[in-house]
């Protein structure tokens, strides 16, 4: 491209680096502080220590929160992926009256502020006697996660050769057989990616869970509890572990989405 200038490009690269430092400073900080012996980290840092990890390892509340998070995450991932798959295929295949309403309903939840979702869910679920249970968190997270699953699977469907389905019909497969033998195999990587991503979203969601969970708190809600109470580097230890598990899920999803031809055989 035309007028390049080393100086300006250098400044731009520096700017990217500064943005990344700003974004990742708290994430990196949480790692460093979690391995630091001081309760109130300051410069110079204290000694390397695994005390905070030991503390959460021995905390039954953390374990029950962890168990709740995993159970909710697994169920939510399955529900959101099934709902998202249906929505994505509907958007890909059909045109119908009210489709924009359908899509808005399917995709809007992430744009509604979480406090409002939380309040609405709490008011509604307590009316039907469902608040304060694990089911209520599953319901709320299902609403919030299905748009992500739908977007991922829809993207994969848009890479599919439209003739594939027609060919399957010509070969005598009905819609169900085509779904089973053509569409699901083709979208399989995206389905797994959607499972992992929605699980990761559910793992980190705390605000709505905080409103509706009652006593069955998920781990992020526990963290919120810690935040309101005393300052404790245990949050950093939990956060670092949560980061590692979320990242594992994201990398798995990324690997699945990487090769678009895989699974289309």
């Amino acid at each position, binding site marked *: *491209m035309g*007028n390049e*200038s080393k100086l300006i*490009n250098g400044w*731009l*690269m520096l700017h*990217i680096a500064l*943005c*990344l430092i*700003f*974004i990742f*400073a*708290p*994430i990196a*900080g*949480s790692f460093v*502080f979690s391995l630091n012996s001081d309760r*109130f*980290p*300051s*410069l110079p840092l204290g000694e390397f220590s695994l005390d905070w990890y030991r503390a959460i390892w021995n905390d039954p509340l953390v374990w029950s929160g962890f168990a709740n998070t995993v159970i909710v995450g697994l169920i939510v991932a399955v529900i959101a992926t*099934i*709902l998202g798959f*249906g929505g994505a295929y509907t958007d890909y295949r059909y045109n*119908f*009256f009210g489709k924009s309403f359908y899509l808005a*309903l*399917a995709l809007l*939840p992430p744009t509604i*502020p979480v*406090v*409002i*979702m*939380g*309040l*609405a*869910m709490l*008011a509604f679920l307590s009316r039907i006697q469902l608040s304060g249970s694990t089911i209520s968190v599953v319901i*709320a997270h*299902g*609403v919030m996660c*299905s748009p992500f699953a739908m977007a991922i699977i829809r993207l994969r469907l848009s890479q599919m050769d439209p003739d594939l389905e027609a060919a399957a019909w010509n070969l005598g497969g009905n*819609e*169900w057989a085509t*779904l089973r033998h053509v569409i699901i195999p083709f979208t399989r990587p995206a389905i797994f990616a959607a499972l992992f991503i929605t699980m*990761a*979203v559910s793992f980190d969601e*705390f605000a709505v869970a905080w*409103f509706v969970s009652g006593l069955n708190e998920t781990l992020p809600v526990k*963290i919120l509890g810690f*935040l309101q109470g005393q*300052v404790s580097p245990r*949050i*950093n230890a*939990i*956060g670092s572990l*949560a*980061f590692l598990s*979320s990242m594992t899920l*994201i990398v798995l999803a990324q690997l699945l989405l990487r090769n678009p031809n895989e699974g289309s055989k």
Partner: protein
Amino acid sequence: MKRPSLFSLVLAMPLLLWQLAFFLFPLLFLIAISFWTVKMFQMQPDMSFANWQRILTRGVFWDAYLRTMILATSAAVLTSAIAFPASYAISFKLSERAKRWMIFVLIIPFFTSYLVRVYSWQVFLTDAGIINAALSYVGLGPYPMLNNTFGTLVGMVTLCLPLVILLQTFSLNFVNRDLIEAAHNLRCGRLRTVASVIVPSAKVGLVIAALFAFILSFGDFVSPLYLGGGNPPTLSIMITDITKSGQQWPRAAVVAIMMIATLMTVAFAAITYAYKERGK
């Protein structure tokens, strides 16, 4: 129109029914309960405007409203301004490979607990924290960076920056490279090219990115509470306070409806503006 097949209904209906029952209906229910009354700590169906009157005639509410608007607007403008040079560089200066890496790196924060990041910022920003300690080595500070507007904005920018860079980068990727070449051939300088070719071409994406930053900051209660000190409260803090402190959900519902109405108005205005006289 052809009758929908059983097959299409089986695929389309679950999502529709789920979102109607657990997304749209709870939001509509919120509107309904804003007219209910609370007696003996129990909500009762009613058609009373008392909650509306009580909230909307309060100075506290309007102070919070104004404060939330200012914070969210500042966060949106600040984030957009910080993000743009980065998005520009990612879109125009990086190789395809580096671009893909950058996008992956920017997705990571979405899956990192925002709470933990905010907690980590607390440790950075306190008077005895890392930043002030570093500054004191060179004889500066300490600067108050926590429990004030600065702290809140740090948190909000942390929340919004990755998303805004991603959205801006995507929209800049769609800018027609020939137009830029043409501008250069016409001896248009770099800044002028950015101002009169790139920004107008990518306007829709830039405005939508800012809109997302506004929406996220407007609804965020974590930064104002844990980095801003929570006082004076924002609308989101008000909702959590009212909800957690008792059965006054109808009043919280009024605040929530005001928030949604504001967001819808802002979103409508932003999108109208984005598409107005859209570049050639």
